[in-house]
């Protein structure tokens, strides 16, 4: 019996590898864990359309939303065979799914591909008295906790960026959570909050339309939008590099347990797609920085994000599961 089973397993393994050599021979499905039209969805639809051109098959993009931090979609893909025919479209926000109780895997369950991300900005409404990040920080230091700051929900990348700038500059703001970037920006426009931390991509139309006044980027690089040069907060505060940058990483992933042939085939298609004109144009128009990391490099980036996110949430008391029990190391 035992022998028969071993034989069976061996046979499956063999057919598995035989098929894998031909990978891909049927259509691939990418399940995006966030809703249609969101950043992750848009990026996946774009990159999948480009990768399709490099592969002999089509790629269908579907949305599997819901759960905790996108856990529904990740669990769905986890339960599919690791043959590379079901990919998962995800973003840096998904690294909190485990500590929030959405599922019980560390993020290295995945073999990720990073398409890119948009740098976070600190911006104020157009009528705001603050014109530079220094003025804002001075005001916040004068009256700690009095200046309301919007960022999407507790534990989001924007919230972590806000926390980092507080720690790096010594200012304390009054964090007001919103259910996403758009409502937070809307609040800054209405004057309900003094500043908002969201990504350049999300703020771009409002900055170009003169509704928001950008003060600083939260990356070492400055950013250019229209004729405007947005300085980096790193130039104003020395301590920042201890906490920042914490940057969006949007892309897709395959099971880490997938065969090397699958990873190689996807990697080759991904490299060609990411180097293409379409991705460059798209990134420039939408104010994204192209990533292009995959495999070990991307895994390392994600595990850094995972440990920062998980332990910050833990310290905020917002984590259900102790990151230590999941084997997530302290940053």
């Amino acid at each position, binding site marked *: 019996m035992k022998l028969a089973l071993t034989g069976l397993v061996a046979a499956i393994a063999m057919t598995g590898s035989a098929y894998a050599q031909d990978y891909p021979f049927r259509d691939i499905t990418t399940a995006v864990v966030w809703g*249609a039209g969101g*950043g992750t969805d848009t990026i996946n639809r774009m990159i999948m359309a480009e990768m399709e051109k490099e592969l002999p098959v089509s790629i269908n993009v579907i949305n599997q939303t819901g759960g905790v931090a996108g856990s529904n979609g990740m669990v769905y893909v986890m339960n599919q065979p690791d043959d590379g025919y079901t990919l998962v479209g995800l973003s840096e926000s998904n690294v909190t799914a485990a500590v929030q109780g959405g599922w019980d895997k560390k993020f290295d369950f995945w073999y990720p591909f990073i398409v890119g991300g948009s740098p976070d900005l600190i911006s104020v409404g157009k009528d705001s008295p603050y014109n530079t990040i220094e003025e804002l920080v001075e005001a916040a230091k004068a009256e700690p906790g009095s200046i309301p700051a919007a960022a999407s929900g507790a534990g989001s990348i924007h919230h972590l960026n806000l926390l980092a700038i507080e720690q790096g500059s010594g200012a304390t703001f009054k964090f*007001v*959570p919103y259910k996403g970037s758009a409502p937070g920006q*809307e609040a800054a426009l*209405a*004057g309900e909050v003094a500043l908002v931390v969201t990504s350049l991509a999300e703020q771009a139309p409002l900055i170009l*339309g003169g*509704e928001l006044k950008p003060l600083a980027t939260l990356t070492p690089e400055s950013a250019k939008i229209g004729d405007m040069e947005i300085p980096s907060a790193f130039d104003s505060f020395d301590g920042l590099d201890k906490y920042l940058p914490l940057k969006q990483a949007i892309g897709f992933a395959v099971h880490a347990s997938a065969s090397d042939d699958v990873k190689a085939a996807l990697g080759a298609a991904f490299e060609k797609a990411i180097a293409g004109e379409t991705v460059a144009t798209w990134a420039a128009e939408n104010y994204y920085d192209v990533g292009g990391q995959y495999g070990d490099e991307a895994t390392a980036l994600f595990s850094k994000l995972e440990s920062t996110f998980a332990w910050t949430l833990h310290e905020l008391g917002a984590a259900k599961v102790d990151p230590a029990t999941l084997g997530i190391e302290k940053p």
Partner: protein
Amino acid sequence: MEFFFAQVSGFWDALVHLASDPITYPYLIASVFLGIIFGALPGLTATLAVTILTGFFGNKFPLEQSLIALIGAYVGAIYGGSYPSILLNIPGTAASAATAMDGHPLAKKGRGGEALGMTTTSSFIGTLIGTSFLLVFVWLLLMISKNIASPEKALLALFGILLSGTLMSKDLVLKGWISGLIGLAMAMVGLDPILSETRYTFGWSYLMSGFQVVPVLMGAFAVPQIMDGMRAAGSVGQAVDVGKIVPRVGTVMKRFPTIARSGVIGTGVGALPGVGEDVAGWVSYGVGKAVCKDGDQFGKGSINGLLSAEAANNAAIGGALIPLLVLGIPGSPPAAALLGALKINNVIPGPTIDPQLILHVVAILVMAAATMAIMGLLTARVFINVLRIPQTIFLPVVMVLTTIGSFSVGGGINDLYLMLCVGFVAYAMGKMHYPIAPLVIGVILGPLFDETFRRSLYLSDGDLSTFWTRPGAAILLALNVALVLSQMPVVKRTFRRLKPGGI
């Protein structure tokens, strides 16, 4: 003024361009039809129709064409919800809950054909009013909606709940308010919107996401209706006098003040971020009841009541698109799905949006409204025959559809238990003359009220004066207070004395 002419001529060009392209028509007809079906089936909503189409079209079709389909479905679904409201007293979508108030009594009086015809016409005109605001007054409305912050939204949500409580009560107004407060309490279950703490979940993960609107809506309206229908055991269908469905121009003209007022109210409510068609219908209905000469007939089968609700919910579409297109902030849930469709196609709505696209959207809205009107007037004759089917056959079918609708929101079997529980409670409440609609409105608007009320206080460090120091908030607070005071017996008596003949 120059802006006005430029917009109108630009719109005309866009309309001609759209109308002369043959590909427009298959998209338009299919999508409006799909929208009407989604709207008419209890539980399937406009948001769902637009979301499904957004995923379906993705970025594989030209944006111009997918927009036709999405907007067509949006307009169709908001209108389609009125069919079951009028014919069955089960609102197809939350947006048409106010429509049932007068629509169904009309149908019971055998004036269902007339009601459907008037609904279609007013939805058509309402959509056009909302659209014309989008075309011409976009910047004016934007200025207002941009300055709406949390305190105003909280007071508006509260006003919506109180208003529906006031309007729906058959005997004691207090009963309506109680029902609204129960709904508000139900909305508190789940993760709190500010700090994500769990509330009233008893460790049950299903409750963490709170009570979904669709199962509550279906339970509250469909289940009691089905129970009542089955008890009455009308084994024979109702005799239906279809009558004249297309209303006379004269009739429409006579009602025009109501339609125009409701259209403007609907557009305004729709333009507020996050407040959509469902609130628009109620607010307009409430204003109508106060303003119309036959206000006391509202709820008993008044054409004016029907028009107030229907013109407003369709006008809200144009309103909801204003902050969406020029700020990138959706004015209603279906508009949020539409935002996704734009982004998939690499169009980022906001102050930098291509003005041509707004004109294109306006042209699509006009064409979709016309398609909806023609389709509605042609098919009303068929739909009204639903009333002829014996209830013993028809109601089980409705029950199945309702169940599917509740299941479609994705909460699993628990959503069906929720629907049944709400249904039995609603049935009992109905027997005790507690109106059920305020409960549903409470569940719909509760999360908005909860989030904005608490955020207002959070921002003001618990200082309640934030609700009257802002001009917009002060007006809304005054409206809320006036609404409650106007129901006090003392105040009512004084008014009656001041104004012989009553209001």
